[in-house]
């Protein structure tokens, strides 16, 4: 799966974001994480292969999430759906 890594000075958490390349809320979430200076990886689900999309679906559902974007999974434990600044900051301890 083509995960794109965005460098940042905070590397304490493993952050994976599923996004849609055309989605503005996703774009704002990417920018927000960049501004926080956290390192993260993202996958644009609409650009992924059918097989990868299926894996993404399973990953999200395993964490009890809905199939909507952005979805952020932190340390493969906490799932946050949508552009929720406060929730994201809290989960990252920032």
């Amino acid at each position: 799966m083509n995960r794109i890594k965005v460098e940042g000075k905070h590397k304490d958490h493993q952050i994976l974001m599923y996004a849609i390349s055309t989605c503005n809320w996703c774009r704002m979430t990417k920018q927000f994480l960049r501004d926080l200076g956290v390192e993260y990886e993202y996958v644009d689900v609409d650009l992924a292969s059918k097989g990868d999309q299926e894996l993404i679906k399973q990953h999200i559902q395993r964490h009890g999430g809905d199939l909507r974007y952005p979805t952020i999974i932190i340390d493969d434990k906490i799932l946050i759906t949508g552009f929720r600044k406060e929730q994201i900051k809290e989960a990252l301890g920032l």
Partner: protein
Amino acid sequence: MTTLKEVRQRAEADAKMHGYALNPDEEMLQGILKGLKRNEERYGYPSCPCRLATGQLEKDRDIICPCDYRDPDVEEYGNCYCALYVNQEISEGKAEVQPIPERRPPQKLEQAYTSGGPDSAPEPAAKPAVVSSASETNLKFWFCKVCGYVCFREEPPHKCPICGAKQEMFSEILLGMNWMTR
């Protein structure tokens, strides 16, 4: 090819016709319009930029912009799911756009994935779509008392798209079923 300007003009005209406005934040607005343009290029129709499309017109019909969920969403939250369309309050800066819950049913969301959606698990018989969605979502018939325009939705439109009359000028059409069964 559709230009960004055309996408914008189309959205502006639609907002005006229905009594909405476009997102007042120019940067957000540009982002959403670009997404719509991109989708129109890759799918052949402007499917919702914030949702995963299947690329098959029949399955994506409910999320072609303006999607089926716009009106109830603007009514309830003040903006649509992508925050392209907003109500007057947000347009005038008295309230802000916010990320809102997804109104599209989970079965529809699953269709874009190989193991999901109505197609991959064959159903015994196709249900009439209009009847089931009407009973699930309380769709009603409304008519404009000024010009007679009729629509089928949960709430009457903010503004009549034909004559521009206000929402208060709409009345519900109560259908008497007995004449049909005679």
